[in-house]
């Protein structure tokens, strides 16, 4: 999620710093060269179908599937080899752009991977179709924790792909005190060293946790209060960032930033002075799930693809490459998984207080807080 600029970083290596992407699992010995035949052989019988020669259109976040770089598994190529189905793979960079493309009707995809609140919205607008779980036997690997979630209470439309949480990243050479609260993002000691999200909902969420509010509040006064808090913060900020956070935190150019746990692991590879904490006030959790749009052209291939993504070996390759938490128990317990038991990706339930999901929010409230956000940007 939101990693589209990673490719830019690759180019920047030549300019200056050394960048060790998390997506380069050198621990996997079974993927050197003969991986395709290796994986294919074990699964061949399951994936031999009459669908060979058809086309599957997949729409996913950038950098959100293991693509064969750095000795990782090329998931798409494996699937094509195994099934003879040709995959067209496209990227999007936000739930909203994905939604507007799909809604315009100009495109048709068989597989999309939106986040929770977007799935809620798409189900309510009748843009998704039910999955045929009899064709997805690997669904049994999905952790019970990630079933019956609010956006798909009866597990009809979606299969969880990745799970993530926002936390606070800080540089221990600059921040020497113990950090356990979002409050530090308002500490004048660190003026000009603080970063925050450059998108309204994520930035608001931090203020909302500080104020003990519900992230999906429909009370305009709550949003006003959160906006006031964010305006107070503006003079202390170095910048509002998304992907630039990697460069800034890895290079020690900023001291404090909120970001996704999985991405912290990537940053930590480059700079071991960084530390991560789930603040005590609570934090935002998200699930990106695999869905099939109403206007899909190749439903059966889509079911096959979903099942393939849940295969333990495939899920493992993706989990190693993407570095987000996997909802797949076969991956989480896999003996080759280098992030197995990692306490940042897989914290104990007690370690993280008050996790809240974003819900699809009423358009009137949305336009209200976007208005406030603009005032904050101008403040």
């Amino acid at each position, binding site marked *: 999620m939101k990693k589209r600029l990673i490719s830019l970083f690759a180019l*920047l290596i030549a*300019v200056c710093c050394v960048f060790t992407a998390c997506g380069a699992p050198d621990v996997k010995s079974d993927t050197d060269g003969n991986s395709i035949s290796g994986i294919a052989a074990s699964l061949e019988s399951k994936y031999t179908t009459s669908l060979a020669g058809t086309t599957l259109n997949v729409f996913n976040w950038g950098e959100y599937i293991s693509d064969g770089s750095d000795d990782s598994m090329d998931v798409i190529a494996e699937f094509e080899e195994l099934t003879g189905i040709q995959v067209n793979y496209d990227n999007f960079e936000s739930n909203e752009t994905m939604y507007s493309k799909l809604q315009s009707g100009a495109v048709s995809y068989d597989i999309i991977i939106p986040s929770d609140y977007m799935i809620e919205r798409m189900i309510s607008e009748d843009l998704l179709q039910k999955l045929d779980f009899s064709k997805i036997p690997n669904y049994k690997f999905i952790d019970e924790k990630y079933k019956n979630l609010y956006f798909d209470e009866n597990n009809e439309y979606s299969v969880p792909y990745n799970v993530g949480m926002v936390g606070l990243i800080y540089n221990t050479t600059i921040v020497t005190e113990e950090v356990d609260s979002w409050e530090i993002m308002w500490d004048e000691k660190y003026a000009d060293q603080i970063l925050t999200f450059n998108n309204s909902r994520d930035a608001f969420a931090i203020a909302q946790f500080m104020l003990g509010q519900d992230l999906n509040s429909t009370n305009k006064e709550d949003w006003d209060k959160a906006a006031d808090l964010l305006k107070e913060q*503006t003079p202390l900020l170095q910048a*509002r960032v998304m992907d*630039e956070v990697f460069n800034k935190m890895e290079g*020690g150019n900023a001291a404090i930033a909120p970001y996704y746990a999985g991405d912290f692991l990537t940053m930590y590879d480059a700079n071991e002075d960084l530390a991560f904490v789930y603040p005590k006030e609570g934090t935002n959790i998200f699930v990106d799930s695999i869905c099939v749009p109403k206007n899909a052209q190749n439903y059966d291939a889509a079911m096959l693809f979903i099942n393939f993504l849940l295969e333990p070996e495939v899920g493992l390759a993706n989990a190693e490459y993407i570095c987000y938490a996997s909802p797949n128990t076969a991956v989480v317990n896999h003996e080759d998984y280098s992030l197995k038991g990692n306490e940042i990706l897989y914290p104990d339930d007690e370690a993280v207080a008050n996790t809240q999901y974003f819900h699809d929010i009423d358009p009137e409230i949305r336009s209200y807080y*976007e208005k406030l956000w603009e005032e904050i*940007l101008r403040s």
Partner: protein
Amino acid sequence: MKHSSLGTKILNAPYILWSVLFIIVPLVIVVYFAFTDQNGAWTLANIAEIKDYGEILLRSIGYAVVATLITLVTSYPVAYFMSKAKARTQAIMMMLIMLPMWMNLLIRTYSWTTILEKNGIINTLLGYLGIGPLPLIGTSGAVILGMIYNYIPYMILPIYTIMVKIDPALLEAASDLGSNGFDRLKRVIFPLSLPGVVSGITMVFVPSVSTFYIADKLGSTKTLMIGDMIQKKFDINLYSNTGAALSFVLMLIILISLAVMHKFAGEDGEAIIV
């Protein structure tokens, strides 16, 4: 070409079609969005909202003016010496000016963050000398630098193109009539190069004032520019109408400033308009 033949008309057709499809139609759409609300009803509310953006608009114009002036002052001598250099040197210089443009603007701009950061290349080098770290990134200076870096070829090239066309015989005549070097520059070369200057100013000022991304990456929360604001408006999807209104006003400002400049530059300046 008063009586254009059928052949000319056919040759012109693709160009006209292109202009209508990709220039006229989008402009009409922008204007339509600027004067309607989300439901398509006519309204002036979007235009009225512009007053909230006065500061950002002024800031954008200010940055663009400064960037254009610095670009002009630095480009003019470059273009002059380039036009006087040997053909081979000219080719090499041209190549060096064009080379960075082979890379995408986003990447070029993003690279500057690595150079300007607190622990970036410049500050690291200064650190060895016991200086700094200086606040480079996140300043107005960084934003203006980004504009100059990205748009300077658009200033050098038109001035150079005009200068190589200046007839050397005119300069010889000026010398024969007693002009010294400075007089020649002031009374012959500069007036003759004016169309190139006007065109260069236009080509740097227009993208600078409406630029997005540069201020977002190199600036701070205090250097927000109108281009970024418009981009955010469309990104959010809720505010396409105010975004269009801002674009519309920005276009008017650009048109007016160009008109003023052309008036100012006089008849010599009419030769080249973007």
